[in-house]
């Protein structure tokens, strides 16, 4: 769409030297929303993290220094929640990319039913987290569909597996849900990337006598490198955003062993009402994901 315009010469941006009433008028709604509901909360959160913070009128908050941060770092459940989040990222990010890319390559190679497949694989992406979490809860219930299949249908075990009642399998179900819901998103961005790979590259390769697999590793993968890096960054951020699936499927149980970063923060804030602790924890979560994202960018720049 936009490349029709590229032949036209680019003009210099309109220079605004004086304070311009119209410009201010156009900027102000965005600045108010961004300033009041994003920037102010970022600053306020930092302040809160040094207090035993109370919310509500006529409530006194007491300055406690670094106590909230010390409490967070000494908390075994904090460590559990962060490690659950990191493992979730390590499991779901590569799985989504590999499966999504595989589906994209397959759909890219066919001629008929392309759009049908694309739509069907994309459906889990547009289904809300609340609904898919409840469906998975229903399937992985003790008397649910999956236990029926593995015990009475396939006779793999004689006893039910309490999927959502034990930490390891609880996290496994959450990861499975994350992968299942994310495949479609990856498929779409990789399909778009595959369409951008110049056909001449493949033609040259087939003259040289490379097989399909060779072509994939020597042409396709290097050509879509940027999209893969984009997916890694976005999915890592996504892993730190996990909340609804855990909250509705396990609720962090048993004994907070299936908490992830945000569910534990939410519990401390709105169940335990320890806002100071939760504010410090929020800051730590934001720092961790920012550091991960920045180091990914740094690493990828070297890689390029």
């Amino acid at each position, binding site marked *: 769409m936009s490349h029709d315009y590229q032949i036209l010469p680019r*003009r210099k941006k309109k220079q605004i030297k004086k304070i311009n009433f119209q410009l201010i008028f156009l900027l102000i709604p965005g600045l108010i929303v961004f300033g009041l509901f994003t920037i102010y*909360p970022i600053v306020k959160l930092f302040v809160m993290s040094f207090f035993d913070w109370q*919310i509500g009128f006529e409530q006194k908050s007491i300055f406690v220094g670094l106590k909230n941060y010390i409490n967070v770092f000494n908390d075994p459940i904090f460590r559990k929640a962060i490690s659950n989040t990191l493992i979730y990222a390590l499991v779901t990010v590569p799985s989504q990319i590999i499966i999504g890319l595989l589906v994209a390559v397959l759909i890219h190679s066919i001629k008929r039913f392309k759009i049908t497949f694309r739509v069907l694989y994309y*459906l889990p992406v547009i289904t809300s987290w609340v609904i898919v979490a409840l469906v998975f809860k229903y399937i992985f219930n003790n008397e649910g*569909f999956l236990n*029926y299949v593995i015990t009475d249908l396939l006779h793999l075990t004689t006893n039910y597996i309490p999927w959502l009642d034990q930490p390891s399998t609880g996290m496994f179900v959450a990861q499975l849900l994350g992968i299942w819901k994310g495949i479609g998103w990856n498929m779409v961005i990789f399909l778009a990337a595959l369409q951008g790979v110049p056909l001449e590259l493949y033609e040259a390769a087939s003259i040289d006598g490379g097989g399909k697999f060779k072509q994939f590793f020597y042409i396709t993968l290097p050509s879509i490198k940027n999209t893969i890096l*984009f997916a890694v960054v976005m999915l890592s951020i996504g892993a730190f955003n996990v909340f609804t699936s855990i909250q509705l499927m396990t609720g962090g149980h048993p004994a907070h062993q299936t908490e992830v970063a945000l569910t534990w923060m939410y519990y401390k804030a709105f169940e335990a009402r320890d806002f100071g602790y939760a504010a410090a924890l929020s800051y730590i979560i934001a720092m961790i994901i920012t550091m991960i994202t920045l180091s990914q960018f740094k690493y990828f720049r070297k890689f390029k």
Partner: protein
Amino acid sequence: MMRKYKYKLLIYFILLIGVIITSTPMIYLISTSLRPNGSLYEYPPKLIPNKVTLENYRYIIFKVDFYRSFLNSFIVALCSTLLAAFISSSLAFCLARFDFPGKRLLFATIMATMIIPGMTLIIPQFELAVTFKLINKLGGLIPVYVAWVLPFSTFMIKGFIEGIPTDFDEAIYIDGGNAFTVYRTIILPLASPSIAAVSIFNFLMAWEEYPWALTVINDLEKRTLPITISGFFGQHNFTQWGYVFAMSVISLLPVIITFLFFQQYFVSGLSSGAIK
């Protein structure tokens, strides 16, 4: 030739297996919603029910005030989407077309906030909602939703506006128009594909948002769909899956219809960010 044909067939076969695996949970959702509520844990569980009934749908439509949650979600999602579309497009217009003091800092800050999870700011945002007396009001949801989608929307629309040649703007200025005229007559119409693409995502986000609505809304008649669906589950626990899934299916319908009509926008909105 025969080998090539077999190879193609294999690809379709793999894709089909994949579709069956990915859509099983959705089929199970729909079939459970169509089953009589008493037979939900009927043994053995079946993917396709023996007896199909609309009893669950009848119950949630006539007995529970489900339509109210539907309406609440619609109002919240529509207001958030429209506000976000205007605010982010005007902000994007300023960032793409003008130089003003602090511009680079503003853009860098907007980009940086895209990294941190929106939920980490939920405590100060909750305090703001308490201060402005927005607790238990639909109006308490909208500003936070707009703030959450603003950075990404601005980023996407700004990129698109930069592809529109400034010659049009110049022509308007020469004719005596001002920045508003340019925004209204050039930017809004020409950038509408990108505004539409982000608006679909913004609507979807507001339609299905869970944690903030859970925090702010308590009253039954103020609840949005995700809160009603998950809350209904919590109240009646294990016996009422049929009702829960009937609600889920109804809340999914508008999303799926929109998706089928505008799937090109879903794709373009996603991929334009990914390929750069």
